């Protein structure tokens, strides 16, 4: 009887110690883990940016511009028409470029190709590029996010 009593008391103590230790570990790890997750910096949602003047862009060229903190690409087709897309490759985040020789948007990282409507036509990219709206006001070009 006494023996049993003792061992159950010992078990009880072990539990208490075990839980205490666990609690201790958590109270050490929790702040550290929260610390290494960077805080969200509220960034002003960019809706539209001014990219430049119509005359700055020659037909048949592509230019990278800043859209918030991500790159966008403005393409002036041979016809003179403007198109804009996000320049972030939908595959693994590289920045795409306009290839005059291919008449297409090309990503150097894994040879991904998009047509001039931003559709992924070859290589690994899984989705089309996000399209932006181009507004020409006078001779100024504005690019804005659709919707």
């Amino acid at each position: 009887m006494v023996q049993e009593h003792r061992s159950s008391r010992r078990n009880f103590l072990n539990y208490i110690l075990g839980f205490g230790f666990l609690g201790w570990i958590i109270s050490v790890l929790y702040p550290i883990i929260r610390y290494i997750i960077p805080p969200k910096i509220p960034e002003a949602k960019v809706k539209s940016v001014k990219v430049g003047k119509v005359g700055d862009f020659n037909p048949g060229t592509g230019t990278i511009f800043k859209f918030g903190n991500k790159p966008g690409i403005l393409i002036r087709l041979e016809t003179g028409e403007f198109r804009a897309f996000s320049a972030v490759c939908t595959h693994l985040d590289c920045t795409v470029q306009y290839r005059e020789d291919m008449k297409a948007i090309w990503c150097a990282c894994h040879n991904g190709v998009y047509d001039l409507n931003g559709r992924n036509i070859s290589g690994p990219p899984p989705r089309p590029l996000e399209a932006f709206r181009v507004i020409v006001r006078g001779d100024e070009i504005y690019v804005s996010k659709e919707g």
Partner: protein
Amino acid sequence: MAKFGERLFNWFDERYKIRGFIEFMSHKSVPQHRHSIWYYFGGVSLFLFIIQVVTGILLLLYYRVGEDSSYESVQFIVSKVKFGWLIRSIHSWSANLMILAVFIHMFSVYFTKAYRKPRELTWVTGFLLLILSLTFGFSGYLLPWNELAFFATKVGTEIIGSIPVIGKELLIIVRGGEDVTGATLSRFFGLHVAILPGIFTVILFIHLLFVQIQGMSEPPEWEKLPPEKRKYIPFFPNFLLRDLLLWLIILNILAVLAVFFPWDLGKKADPFAPAPAGIKPEWYFLFMYQTLKLLPPKVLFIEGEFFGVLIFTVAGILWMLVPFWDVKTEKGYRNRLINYIGLFVLIYMITMTILGYALS
């Protein structure tokens, strides 16, 4: 003079009992057979690691981490600081040679089955050191903040994002934000110069301690040889001297490489420039990179990248645990399967690496 030496020795021995240690070292011996050449690659890896530590500390004297200073400070090191180009070049070359030596060391241990009981944990710690070395390489690659490294890091870390559920959060932790920015640079810097060296040193110490306690492994064929047929050479001074000679040769190779093929710094990273052609990770990641490239976007409902990551993780874990599943076959011979698996892995890695170079 001799008296003084003796007194010094006695002084230490009285306090730290070093006589036993000297005794132990003087009896230590290394098996001598036709595969003994492989014994040296562990030592070579160690030597190159020491070079990394020394040159790394030297680089730290001038390197300043930051989006506006990393590239500039490395440029300063290689153009203004006397012998700066040499130190940096050696650091880069030695990093690459170290990874190579570690791989050779690993495969030679694998094929000679030196990981068998009782050396299971030496193998496991060795594998951890390999993973840490690769992480060293990956984090160090970004530090000069040049174009190539910037996009390689973008791609390399983006793969983490393909892990379901926790991927996004993990990606933010690794990058220090959603994108590869100065925050990523700071994180990689901390990892490269503080966290990794700390963990690496501890595991390396354990690894070497295991080797010292158990001595060098003997090849399986020796089990059948009568004891008088087994040849040994003393560790001290014979093996150690050969080791030192080899280290000297390696140092010379390093110097030649560093002087005649100085490491290029390239163009500064610009987050608003298109990725340049020829983006490739370092050669030791190329086989994984090439595999990911060949995978279709979707494998059985799983995203291609994640599928690749999954395969490599599982394969890595199995590889690490090989001492525990390599069992004797009924006839008592060592499992042949192990050799075939090893050969397959080796050939796969080499083919994919060559493909990675050829296809770009």
